Structures are given as structure tokens and as C-alpha cells.
């Protein structure tokens, strides 16, 4: 593995995290808000 491969891998993991975290926050905040009403 080259340095370039490691950079691509890191970028790929970052994209994956963003794709998972954004919907998680929407569901989490949304359901929490429902409980407070």
C-alpha cells in the first residue's frame, strides 16, 4: 500500500462516516423532540 492508497482509504472512510452520521442525527433528534412535546 502506498501513501496515496492510505489517503484514498481515509477519504473513503470519512465519506462512509458522514453518510451514516447525518441520518442518525436526523432520527435521533427527531425522536427525542417527539418525546418532549
Amino acid at each position, binding site marked *: 500500500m502506498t501513501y496515496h*492508497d492510505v489517503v484514498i482509504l481515509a477519504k473513503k*472512510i470519512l465519506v462512509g*462516516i458522514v453518510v451514516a452520521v447525518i441520518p442518525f442525527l436526523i432520527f435521533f433528534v427527531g425522536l427525542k423532540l417527539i418525546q418532549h412535546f
Partner: protein
Amino acid sequence: MPLKKETGRSILRDASVSLLLYALPVLLLAAYLYITGDKPWLRAPAKPAIPVLKTVFEHLSTWGLPVLMVGVGIIEFALRLYEKKWTRNERILDIVCFIGPKVFIRPAVVYFTLWLLPVLLPGLKNVFAWVPLVWGFLIVAVADDLTQYWYHRLHHQVPFLWRFHRTHHSAPYMGMAMASRQNIIYTIFFSQIYLTAALVYLGLGYAALLVTGVKSIITLAAHSSIPWDKPLYSRKWLHPVAWVLERLISTPATHHAHHAASNDDGVGHYKGNFGNMFFLWDVIFGTGIITRRYPASFGLSYYQGEEWYAQFLWPIFKSRKAGSELSAGGPEVGDEVTGQPGQALGVGYEEEDYVEKKYLYDLQ
């Protein structure tokens, strides 16, 4: 290779719409509770109304699906649906991809759920166990499948991500043998696995069990070389059912089009049809072509039969095939198709072409 501006714009636009789509089941649940005046979090969570269903889906998620895959795979093999394309290299790759994730991914997800989530989300275990099953099902279905749509679409449209997904598209055949064929890094970092695991931790476990069971059956059936959807197109009285199904879920026809070797036959659409369980996302974002025919050939037109270990473990191991995307210093994207149809309908795509292509099946 930089991301094309037009593609970047369509990704941003559709991602913005997705925020609303993610929020939709929660908003509908809020409206339902407001109208009924119900406050389910104030009472103890109800136990599954149909315990048998839970047992069935538990077995499905453990040993049921692998057995189903092997069973259908044997039928496909007996019917000679792989023709002579299942070479030794392809066989090893498919078998390693079938077994590998079951050895590595499942323990990783269990570890993530049991150890990491209580650290990341302390005191929140089962905090949403009050969510009624129907609503939980809707929330997990949207969460899991829309997230996989985006994970999948980005691996096709963002050049530096493509090689992590290439292995799934290199097979020159369709069927159970290639249904789990993926580069290990693509599989390990599947976003929706971790999102769904987090929702299970928060209390939506039963809903997740049902969703992942239904989803696995739909996606496996869409990859199978047994065209179960064909009778829906040949019998006129079934056309209304076909019309709804082909827009709602992935069928062999629409998903095989995604695995086509070419877009030139009016059936293939390998730069679109990204949906896994739901095809609806492709309909909403205009990335889909609905066809009722099957492509003449599958895979990558420039496939060099790269070594199984390079396909499974790139970039850790590289291919020795000169000029391959998986070789050291190889190109990010091997084929540069100009005027790709339907990357996003309405973006650089003539509606007339779309209509012409979409209704080709009517002329048969």
C-alpha cells in the same frame, strides 16, 4: 480524476432532498401521535405481537439467508445460467466474498454494537423502544436503504470511490454466486450496517430484524439469474402489479440493467439504478431507468479478469494486469463513457430519449 461539476451539483441537490426523506417517517410519526394524543414512551414497551415472525426472521438473519443463497445458487448452476463464464478465478472470488464477510463483518458489527455504542451513546440503550413497530419498520427501512442508496451511488459517481465497488460489477454473469461479491473494504465500511446497529441499540431491534430480512430477500432476488419478474410483464392482467413493483423495489430487470456491460442496447443502465431494496429512490432522484428486458451481457466491457485477491483486497493487494484499474498506478475509472444516460434524469438527459428507452418493452 476530479468529480464532474454536473455530477457534484446533482449529488448536492439530491442529498438535500434526502434530508427531508429521512425526516419524513419521524414527522409522520409526530403527526400521528399528535392527532391520536398517544404518548407511548410513558408506558412499558410492548412485546412483539407475533412472536413466530420474530423467530422466523431471527433464523433468516443467522443461517436462513446463506442456506437460501446456496440453494438458489445450486438451481442456477444446474440450469446452466452461468454458462461457461464461471472460471476458476471467478469461482474463488465469489466463494471468498461469500464466506469472508461472515467471518469478519458480523463479529465487527457485534463488537461495534456491544462495545463501542455504549461508549459513544452512554445511557441511551433502548431509549426509543417505545416507537410502535409499524413506525419503527418505516424508520429503519428508510434509514437503512436510503443510506445504502447513497453509499452505492457515491461509489459509482465519485471517481476515487469506484475501485472499492468495482469487484461487484466485474462478474460477467448474474446470480447468487456474485450477490455478495464485494471488495472487503467496501463491505467493512458499509454505512447502513453501522446506522442500523445504532438504531438497534436505541431500541429499534425488532423493526431492524424485519427490515433487514425483507431487504435481504428482495436484493438477493434482484441479483438472481432466475427472472421471477418475467411473468408480471408477459401477462397483461398483471401489468398494474408490475407497474407498482418496478417503481417500488428492485426487480431482476431493473437491477440486471445496473450490471449491464453496455448502455448501448437500450436496456443497460450501469450508471444508474442504484436502489437496493427500494427502487423508489431512483424514481425520486431520476437516476433510474425502468426496463422490462434483460441485458445481453453483464460485467465490465474492459474487464481483464484481475486476480481474485486483488479484487477482494484492493488496495492492499494490486493486480499484475497492465493498465488495470486495480494495478499499481492504474486509472481510477477505466471507462469514460461520454453522454452517460440518466446519471440524473433532467441533468444533461433528453426526456425524449428517456421515454423512448423506458417503453422499449412495449414494442416487443
